[in-house]
């Protein structure tokens, strides 16, 4: 207990720096994955994508990131075991942050498939298991999280399949795809606004101190949905059939309409990513801050400090500004065949799944979810060619990242423990 009070400032500063480092890593690398379909479909320029990502990642982190932060902070480790030795949790969380951050840096440097979520969860479980004891891990909760890693790509795939089939039925496969696109795309835009704001209202906002009733939630979600739709309709109205563009590819004008939808969906995706993945960086920070501020009390139910969320948001934006644009440019360059109609279906499916997971407090991998969604569109005969070896890479990332995060965390944990005691 004394250790915590003696080193309170040091712990807070370290937590802040490590959290910022991790968030920076997410911004530099992971955000590009989340925005891949948006940039790849050429609906957005790199600059626009960066701007959207910066704004909506931040908003997602602040407005809807609370639930996942809570899980990372106190869902994985059973705090009761640690009541007499809270400093161990501080070391552990610091170690986990450092481990996940380093692993992220190494893996993305080498080009290995890496998931920030898997790194941090692996790291926390690792230090808890070895540094404290097997019983310190809430295995039920961890099992639930791992199950969600399987369910989320599948769910996103199913939603993407259904979405794309509906796009085919209503727009692409009809006699007048252009007119139908203008007619139905606003409904999709409404759907994006409605779903994202509803989940946020229901699950997220209580962490920033706003409490709303169910009826109010639906009312506000509808209002936001309509507002975004109105904006979208204004832009879509201006799109005219372009005969010269259509000569080479008859669906060029149709895709122009979908591009509007893609922009809206890209915002939703950045928001979703912010709401889920920022927690990977700030969950441990929140845990440390909670303990330090209460002078060593773990079970204390303090609310999430807004400045912690701000660190996460700021870190992501910084990473995005410094390196993210490079990664995004590569992504945009590599994905040449994706059209907005596909990009939208895959992205919205992934964003919906991720936001739902955020609302439930489940830390999932945005990238894997997006891959699942893309495959879903592919199964609806939507993609000209998909490279299935990527699925193998995903399994690789499971096999490598979890133990790598865990081992690094264990090493850092013992180093920190040695330094402070």
């Amino acid at each position: 207990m004394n250790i915590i009070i003696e080193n309170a400032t040091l712990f807070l500063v370290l937590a802040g720096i490590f959290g910022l480092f991790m968030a920076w890593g997410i911004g530099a690398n992971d955000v590009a994955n989340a925005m891949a379909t948006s940039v790849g479909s050429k609906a957005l320029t790199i600059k626009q994508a960066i701007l959207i990502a910066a704004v909506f990642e931040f908003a997602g982190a602040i407005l809807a990131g609370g639930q996942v932060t809570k899980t990372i902070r106190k869902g994985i480790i059973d705090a009761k075991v640690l009541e007499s030795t809270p400093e161990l949790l501080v070391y552990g969380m610091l170690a986990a942050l450092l481990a996940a951050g380093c692993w992220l840096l190494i893996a993305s440097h080498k080009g290995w498939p890496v998931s920030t979520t898997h790194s941090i969860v692996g790291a926390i479980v690792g230090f808890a298991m070895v540094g404290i004891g097997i019983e310190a891990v809430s295995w039920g909760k961890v099992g639930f999280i791992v199950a969600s890693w399987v369910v989320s790509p599948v769910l996103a795939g199913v939603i993407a399949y259904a979405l794309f089939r509906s796009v085919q039925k209503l727009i692409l496969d009809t006699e007048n795809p252009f007119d139908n696109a203008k007619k139905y795309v606003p409904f999709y835009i409404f759907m994006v606004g409605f779903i994202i704001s509803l989940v946020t209202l229901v699950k997220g906002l209580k962490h920033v101190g706003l409490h709303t009733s169910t009826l109010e939630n639906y009312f506000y979600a509808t209002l936001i949905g309509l507002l975004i739709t109105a904006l979208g309709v204004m832009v879509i109205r201006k799109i005219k059939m372009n005969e010269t563009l259509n000569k080479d590819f008859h669906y060029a004008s149709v895709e122009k309409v979908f591009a509007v939808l893609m922009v809206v969906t890209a915002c939703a995706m950045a928001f979703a990513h912010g709401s889920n993945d920022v927690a990977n960086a700030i969950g441990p920070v929140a845990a440390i801050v909670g303990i330090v501020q209460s002078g060593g009390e773990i079970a204390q139910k303090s609310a999430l400090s807004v400045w912690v969320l701000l660190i996460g948001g700021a870190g992501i934006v910084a990473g995005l500004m410094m390196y993210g644009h490079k990664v995004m440019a590569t992504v945009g360059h590599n994905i040449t065949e994706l059209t907005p109609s596909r990009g939208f279906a895959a992205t919205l499916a992934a964003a919906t799944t991720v936001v739902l997971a955020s609302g439930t407090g489940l830390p999932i991998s945005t990238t894997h979810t997006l891959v699942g969604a893309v495959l879903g569109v592919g199964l609806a005969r939507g993609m000209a060619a998909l490279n299935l070896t990527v699925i193998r890479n995903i399994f690789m990332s499971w096999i490598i990242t979890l133990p790598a995060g865990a081992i690094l965390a264990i090493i850092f944990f013992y180093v920190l423990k040695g330094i402070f005691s």
Partner: protein
Amino acid sequence: MAVSNYMSGIFGTSPVKPMQVHMEKVHECVSLLVPFCEALIAENWKTVEKLQKQISGLENEADVMKKELRMNLPKGLFMQVSRQDLLEVLTAQDRIANKAKDVAGIILGRKMILPKTIAADYSKFIQRVVDASEQAKITINELDELVETGFRGSEVKLVQTMLKKLDKIESNTDTLERKIRGKLFQIENDMPPLEAMFLYKVIEATGDVADQAQRVGSRLQLFLAR
């Protein structure tokens, strides 16, 4: 930090554009048969030789494209159409150019002279054969639209009309071929036998160009069959 990303890795390179470019090359090659035939009838051997070289060169280019495309179709690729069907369309496309090269090759190699009675018919025949190749090209040009619609809906109907037209052109070339054979049969005894034999062969090879164009269509039809 190195720039690397495995998210973008999932998007394979679509074979559609290369298929279309290949077909364009093939048609460019085949369409030279029209001036080739004109020069032949005018007995302008310099032009005949020059055009034969061009036809052969374009056929070679198409061949290289075909090989490159095949190399870029790994087995792990998940496509809207079966890999085998796609490769068969490609082979059929390539054979159109092969046959055109055969026609030009035999004619130049044997310094063939078309009998006056069939010259006009042969010229018409060639034109129709080139039409078949063009119709195949037009149809292949719809591949990207088919990809966009996921091989469903009204686009499929459009392509099916195009394929019907291709069939019609091909059956038209068959009629013309029969007519020319009939005329040749009447004069074959007045010709050196070898000359007549090879003329039959050229007529057959010319007809094969249209046959292969139709084959492209029938293979494409398999994409539409669900």
